[in-house]
């Protein structure tokens, strides 16, 4: 038998012997794996982060407003501070406060 005929004969037997198809629903299983391997972790992570963020935003905003109000009411803006400095609760910067800070550091160092 010539090679060509042998190839045809064996090829025909091999081709006809097995059902070379995947089980039904193959494309669905492929798409599920693609979703599982590419998209789902990102969606879950970003969704979880977004929920946490949205939960914390109003709390953080309320704390910020409360602290700013406390600083403004407690210190006032009479000592030449800007509104922002007062809201942030910063001490007015004068020569006396600078010396006072220096002394408090020295005392802490001696302890």
């Amino acid at each position: 038998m010539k090679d060509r005929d042998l190839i045809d004969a064996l090829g025909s037997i091999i081709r006809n012997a097995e059902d070379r198809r995947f089980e039904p629903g193959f494309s669905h299983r492929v798409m599920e794996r693609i979703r599982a391997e590419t998209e789902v972790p990102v969606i879950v992570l970003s969704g979880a982060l977004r929920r946490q963020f949205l939960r914390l935003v109003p709390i953080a905003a309320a704390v910020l407003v409360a602290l700013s109000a406390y600083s403004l009411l407690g210190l006032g803006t009479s000592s030449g501070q800007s509104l922002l400095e007062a809201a942030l609760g910063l001490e007015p910067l004068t020569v006396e406060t600078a010396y006072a800070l220096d002394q408090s550091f020295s005392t802490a160092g001696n302890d």
Partner: protein
Amino acid sequence: MMNDRIPDGDLLERARGGDHAAFRTLVERYEHVVAATVIGMLGPGAEAEDVGQETFIRFYAALNRFREEASLKTYLTRIAINLSLNALKRRKRFLSRHVEGDLMDTIQLDPGAGPADRVESQDVRETVRSAIDRLAPKQKAVVTLRLIDGYSTRETAELLGVPEGTVLSRLSRALKRLQPHLQPLMEA
């Protein structure tokens, strides 16, 4: 299901834009091509299904790199054949680790005495699968592409990245090995 007459190029473009339905249509359109290759190489079963899925997942990951000068069928066949060869290597490693030497010889190498005598008691499918499984992986790849998928010698050489002469010599050795096992079926 999306219209079968939509050209591959359009589906590819839509799939690149994140259209899963378009990609799914491509999977449905080419799953028989991938199935013929991986089942030809590995035999039917879970391993072939897994390699088939992996072929399309690799293709999905490479969508933006795929240039349409190559036909999609050829491109998928190349991925499928490479993944199947890897699976055969893994299978060989597994057998060499977990199966006793003598038994492994029986499973992998020993063609057994008098295959013709056993044909009557075996299903044709089992006979063919058993004959193919005795081939070396590289011979199996050539047989799958040439005899099952119907690629020419030149196309097979291109797919495997080897010269045509190598394809012909592997095919010749594979045929010599297959013939005694399949002869009874040829005469039937």
